[in-house]
């Protein structure tokens, strides 16, 4: 089928899932914690204040009406008000989301580059010293939870070796650039302030490394095992027998089929990046969306939690579609054979 049809079908499925997700989380957030109005008002508030708040927040209406009201609001760009701070959630999102996206993008770049480099080397020298070393390190890398790694990195490279800064987005004393897009990196480039750009990147290295290491090691292993598995396949023997140069055989004909399983997994990797951000941003005091979300969760800010899950769901969905498109581009059998040709 054509690429456009492919994308449309996937989008439809995902939108459907997102609706289901929104219902699920909405219901959970209203049902589980007991009385949301009481929660918002606080334990010390008198009963009449709680009832007033209940009416104010629309919590006295039946659940399904609440849902549709909320849904309607979302489509108008209104994510509601934070139950605890009464601040408009959308504005919070706009303020804090860019920082997280910067971090995730950098982490993704590290991850892809690292996975390919390690995977190719390990595959090329399979069962010899480089491969054994890479495999060992990868096993450990996969087994370290992101928050543990964040703490260790901070300990080693910030406190002990003092190479990288400990926390925050920019060093104290360095003024952020004028806000154009909300992305510190892009804005500082626009403003021509390269030292700010450099400083911002410098602050991103450790958190990004903590975010991506687990997934990077996983992908490296997948690429490596793909290459080892395909190395002795007939189509590689044939390419070799035709006298094609080594570099072409390894980096073109062996790599492409071997990396497809890894790319397929990259959607889940992005999930891992987003999820790990919740822990890592907290440790590095990164002013990002995940840090905000974590605060919502700890403070039981119900509107915030629902909005958070929805936004993450949407971002994850978009990322998945992009990954699916890339995989379909790489492996013709997937896009051309979906109907069982």
């Amino acid at each position, binding site marked *: 089928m054509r690429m456009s049809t492919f994308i449309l079908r996937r989008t439809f*499925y*995902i939108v*459907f*899932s*997102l609706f*289901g*997700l929104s219902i*699920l*989380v909405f219901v*959970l*957030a209203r049902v*589980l*914690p007991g009385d949301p109005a009481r929660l918002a008002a606080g334990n010390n508030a008198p009963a009449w204040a709680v009832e007033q708040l209940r009416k104010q927040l629309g919590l006295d209406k039946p659940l399904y009406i609440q849902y549709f009201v909320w849904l309607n609001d979302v489509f108008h760009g209104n994510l509601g008000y934070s139950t605890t701070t009464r601040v408009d959630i959308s504005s919070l999102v706009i303020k804090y989301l860019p920082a997280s996206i910067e971090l995730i993008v950098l982490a993704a770049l590290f991850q892809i580059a690292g996975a390919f480099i390690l995977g190719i080397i390990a595959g090329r020298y399979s069962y010899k010293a480089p491969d054994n070393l890479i495999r060992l390190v990868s*096993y*450990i890398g*996969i*087994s*370290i*939870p992101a*928050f*543990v790694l964040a*703490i*260790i990195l*901070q*300990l080693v490279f910030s*406190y*002990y070796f003092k190479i990288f800064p400990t926390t925050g987005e920019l060093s104290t004393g360095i003024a952020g650039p004028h806000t154009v897009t909300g992305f510190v990196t892009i804005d500082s480039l626009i403003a021509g302030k390269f030292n700010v750009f450099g400083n911002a990147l410098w602050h991103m290295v450790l958190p990004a490394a903590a975010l991506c290491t687990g997934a990077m090691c996983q992908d490296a292993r997948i690429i490596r095992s793909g290459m080892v598995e395909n190395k002795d396949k007939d189509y590689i023997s044939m390419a070799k027998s035709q006298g094609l140069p080594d570099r072409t055989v390894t980096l073109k004909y062996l790599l492409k089929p071997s990396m497809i399983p890894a790319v397929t997994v990259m959607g889940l990797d992005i*999930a*891992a990046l*987003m*999820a*790990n951000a*919740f*822990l890592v941003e*907290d*440790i590095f005091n990164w002013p990002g969306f995940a840090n905000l979300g*974590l605060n*919502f*969760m*700890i403070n*039981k800010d*119900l509107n915030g*939690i629902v909005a*958070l*899950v929805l936004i*993450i*769901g949407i971002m*994850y*969905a978009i990322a998945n579609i992009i990954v699916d498109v890339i995989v379909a581009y790489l492996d013709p059998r997937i896009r051309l054979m979906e109907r069982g040709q």
Partner: protein
Amino acid sequence: MQLMEKIRTIAKRYDIKRKWFRFSRSPLSVVGLVVVAVVIFLALAAPFITPYPRQAGLQTNLRDKFLPPSSKNLFGTDQLGRDVFTRTIFGFQYSLMMAGVVLLLVVPPGVVLGLIAGYYRGGWVDMAIMRISDVFIAVPPLVLALSIASVLTPSAFNAMMAVSLMWWPWYTRLTYNATSSVRNEYFVQASEVMGENSFRIMFAEILPNCLGSILTKITLDVGWVILLGSALSFVGLGAQPPTPDLGTMVAGGSIFLPGQWWISMFPAVAIIVVILGFNLLGDGIRDIFVEETR
């Protein structure tokens, strides 16, 4: 006598000897098995082999707080003077218990749903089950776990419930895929033609073929559940102090970094070791079954 016979027949039926041969071929897998065995042993024997078992609970020892590692306290003491070594070993107990409970709750329904959806593939049952599980998969697992846990009162029990609630769809999906690929094989069709009961077919014919991937996933999942659990307790949404949960301990000790590093570091390393062990073991198990299908 009869028991020996029974064991022998089961071993032959599932080809245990050959599986062990393949498994032991990879030294790393055996390392994983050893690590897991040691961890399980430590978890079970915790009250008996640790020097200060009562400090895993409410007992504190403020006189001896912040002691660095020594022969008296192998891993040092924490901010309340409790022996970190003892608490770490008990931490294993909590981690394994959580993983055990979650998987026990999640695997049977998840697998059964996957079998049904895969068997009646294409029908409304398939649609219903898979669309519902898609909803849970639409968001990164940790985020969903955090969200669900956050609307509940923080506790170890609730953390387990939160993880269980969102974990089952992964087993449904796995089983669904395995069932779908086997569903139209000749041996299944033969059973259908002979008029065998659908449920018998699902459980006696199809399920054994999925066992390999399911077992692999269970083993690897122990690592993941422990990771999720420790992440939840790290942010305070899981086990609460003074419960000796490894994540809680890492969080509790993080404010004392880098000075009194041992309070955080030893539990952190313990988490890594447990997850590493189960990952290695899981890979070994996967290798057994992958070779079988080739």
